[in-house]
């Protein structure tokens, strides 16, 4: 996938982050990626800006001095579906999951490389931009997933998947590069009653990996975010 954001001018990213050096380098990094940025150093100011300037995406630091990051997410979700990318420190898996549950779309762990951040943003924005016309088929490297006739091919060979396995892979393939949380898989594929049966998901992922010839220990397609979810590699 080589589409560049430059083709869609004036994509605005709202950065809500209290630390000035991080804001400064984010501004440069975002500009280098071709994005405009808006900045807020407090949660309240961030919510106001989100409401008044209609950003295309929000990058939100969870550790804000004036209010809890999750409250900011909840406030924005009160009226907007704008993608939210959370910045969080390591070892706060609980925080990350809570933020995802509150309505965040993905996260990046501090300290992070700007490349990683830009990739996440791209995944989130692509989804938003592509919403109008969902492709019938998604191709990621050697993998192609045809949503219409539920067919999966790996390096040209057809791969037989069960219904659930296909649903899981389809969910990943619709949003390449984007994190899909356990809960999201389970409620979408197995139904809300199975929101906590993570072993269903784990087994299904295991089978899909086997069939695609992907290895958990050296993943090229399905990447594990331990304790949180999975994402499909981009290209």
């Amino acid at each position: 996938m080589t589409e560049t954001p430059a083709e869609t001018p004036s994509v605005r990213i709202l950065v809500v982050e209290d630390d000035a050096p991080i804001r400064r380098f984010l501004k440069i990094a975002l500009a280098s990626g071709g994005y405009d940025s808006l900045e807020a150093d407090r949660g309240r100011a961030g919510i106001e800006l989100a409401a008044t300037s209609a950003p295309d995406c929000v990058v939100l630091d969870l550790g804000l001095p004036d209010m809890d990051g999750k409250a900011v997410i909840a406030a924005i979700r009160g009226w907007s579906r704008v993608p939210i990318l959370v910045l969080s420190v390591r070892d706060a898996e609980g925080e990350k999951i809570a933020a995802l549950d509150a309505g965040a779309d993905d996260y990046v762990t501090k300290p992070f490389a700007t490349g990683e951040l830009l990739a996440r943003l791209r995944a989130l924005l692509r989804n938003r931009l592509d919403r109008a016309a969902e492709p019938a088929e998604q191709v990621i490297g050697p993998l192609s997933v045809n949503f219409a006739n539920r067919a999966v091919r790996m390096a040209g060979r057809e791969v037989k998947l069960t219904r659930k396995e296909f649903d899981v892979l389809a969910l990943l393939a619709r949003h390449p590069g984007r994190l899909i949380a356990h809960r999201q898989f389970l409620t979408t594929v197995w139904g809300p009653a199975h929101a906590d049966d993570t072993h269903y998901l784990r087994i299904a992922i295991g089978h899909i990996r086997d069939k695609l010839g992907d290895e958990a220990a050296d993943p090229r397609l399905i990447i594990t975010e331990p304790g949180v979810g999975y994402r499909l590699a981009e290209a």
Partner: protein
Amino acid sequence: MASTADERPAPEAFLEEARTEARQRGGPGRLKVFLGAAPGVGKTFAMIGEARARQRAGVDVVVALVETHGRAETAGLLGPLEQLPRRMVEYRGQTLSELDLDALLARRPQLALIDEFAHTNAPGSRHPKRWQDVLEVLDAGIDVTTTLNIQHIESLNDIVARITGVKVAETVPDQVLQRADDIELIDLPPEELIKRLKEGKVYVPHQVGRALDNFFSRGNLTALRELALRTAASRVDAEMLAYMQANAVRGPWPTEERLLVCVNEAPVAKALVRAGKRMAERARIPWIVATVLTPRHEAMPAGARAATMDALRLAETLGAETTTLHAESDVVAELLHYARARNVSRVVVGRARSRASWRDRLVFLFREHVADRLLDEATDFEVTVVTAHGRPARRGAGRAHLLEPDWRGYALAVAAIAVASLAAWPIAMWDAIPGGAISAIYLTAVLVVGARHGLAASLVATALGSMAYNFFYTEPYYTLAVSNPEDIVSILVFLVGAVFTGTLAGRLKAQVETVRAAQRRTETLYDFARKIAAAGNSDDVLWAGAYHIAATLDCQSLILMPDAAGTLEQVQGHPTIEELDAGAEGAARWAFEKNEPAGSGTATLPMSEWLFVPLAAGERALGVIGVRFRDRSRGLDPETRRLLLAVEDQVAVAIERARLAEELADARVSAESERLRGALLNSVSHDLRTPLATVIGTVSTLAEGEAGTLNAADRRELVLTALDEARRLDRYVQNLLDMTRLGHGALSPKRAPVELGEIVGRVRSDLARILAGHRVEVAIPRDLPMLDVDPVLIGQALTNVLENAAKYAPPGTTILLSARAEGGEAAITVADQGPGIPEGERERVFDLFHRVTQGDARPAGTGLGLAIVRGLVEAHGGRVKAQAGAGGRGAAITLRLPLAATPLDDGA
């Protein structure tokens, strides 16, 4: 008013010198006693006069208590001196005024005047005697002057009584008087004293009262004056001797000889003690008062034992060493053995002058008098026999137990004789057996009764037996008359034999009882020693202590110890701790602060029900032990006190030991944490700074290299270096955080079934750059069950292990990560081809801040990595181990982690 001081200039000078030294050292206060032969000689007057002179010399003087007895001249003399208000005490409707000890201690003058040294305080005062108040004042570092008449000196008390016919109850122990730094004799010729008496200038103490004329007779006063002069003179000698001894001046005094006074429950005991005191004093040798306990004493009523104990207590107040010896039967041998062991040269024993009662005489048939035997056997000692003056009022007290009714014993006596009579019947019918056999049967019965129930019962059996013998088996039969002379001899022989047999058997029984009692005591002490040695911490020791004191001494026990603020608190009690009244609390505090026993049976607060002894280990008291006996007199029994002290000693040692052990453990912990803190500081300063130095260095190069001096490749190289170092820093901080959380136990793994491959995949992608120089092979069997672990934490553990392998193994070598299921666990091994870990280091590499010392100068690790691996793995209930790699090459670190149960429902 001649002071004897005039006649001894040389020693006085020496002593003054020594005292000046003592004062400079800030020791206890000095005691000066104005000694008089009789009331009215002017002691108080002299004391005040001297005090005024001292005050003029700038000394801070307070009159703590002076009796003017309404004499104007005395009161006038007191005028310019500061007087301390007295303490008013209500006692039986009377108001008594006493010395206000606490006020005096609070006032802290340099010199306090306290009149009438021998005064007895009102009941309920802290000390029963004023001389005890004075000692406390002296201990507080305050000088005291006081007054005393010689009839109040303990060892002179009965001599004065003999001279004057008036005995005073208020006495001061000689030991206390010996503590006086100065004794000034106030002398007044008898004529002048009588003149003053007639002029009404003498206050007559109530004890003298009726005997006034008798007391103040010219002859008495002369005798008393002589006694007083002699006392003062002997004091001079004693001071001189003490000084010469202290300064190692060779002198003519006898060395190490001792005087032994033997006392028992006989009324002569106290007179013996006083006589012994005078003899020892005259000979200037230490003296010992001993009593020997035999089986007889074990069975004695408390009253008889108390008489012995009274004598021993008197001896203690007179300055003797006291001891209680034990003997099976041979009192004399025990005394002589002790005397030889202690280098005793003189022995003092007593003997009742009065005629012995029939009962005494009966007993003396079998037990020769101690005094007589001592005279025979103690040929290498100088033996003095003292005869009692008074009537032996309590003559029988000691032996009353012999005939105490023992109804079971008498019943057995009757039964035994009845059985013997029956048993003898067939023998009597058989003419072939001589009549002596019958008496043997009766003798057996007496022996049995004596052995079971002691002497009294055996005597009853003897009487009954001789009657039964006479009645049934001598002609004429069934009468008490005897016709055959042979039978008369038989009965007499039986009587004599029975009395001896019974006595021996009775004594045997008493001995057995003593041995049992001693054995019980020993067992209890031994048991206690064992229990207390096993007690691990102070709490256990205290509990064992309280319990065993109560069990051993048959009393209630308490242990009090100071809390953090220094207030004494009850920490243990048996059967329970309880509220102490003010008196008991005061006694406990006193015992703790002064490191001396207090309360019941002691000189301090004796009205209290409780006796407190300090728990002293070395110089300081750790706390106090309190005991309360149901029978209060038991608290006075020296045997009980000795046992209490023995137990107290054991408890104190055990507490000290437990405390030391705890302190040692604390010290070890704090030393360990000190070491860790040091290592952490080292690690932080080194491992944080090194990557920062690189980051700052490279980035500043980039910042300053704008002028195109750097080509694109250099730029890229610098940027990547900075990035690597920054990431290294990040991992290090992560390790520090993990370690902190492990240390606080704040790390709670969120366990879930997880595939090992997923964790490895994540770790490899995180470490991609670090591992780039090595070949990484992963061998995880496809059928390896899921792990039951927190994927993030175990990911961190694997990150550290792999990073470690990459750091030590040379580039280009292979790092193999393999796993297998083994007994419900997954064994995950990371093997490298580096230098390996020396065998002795394999356990220690998992210690915090431990680094394997390397021969070359490779940058060592942080010393955190593997310690965190162990912490993380153990938090999952797993284990971690270091071994040599395959073929003995390289290092292999194996993590053992729990496997998850396989879910049945896969939802597919």
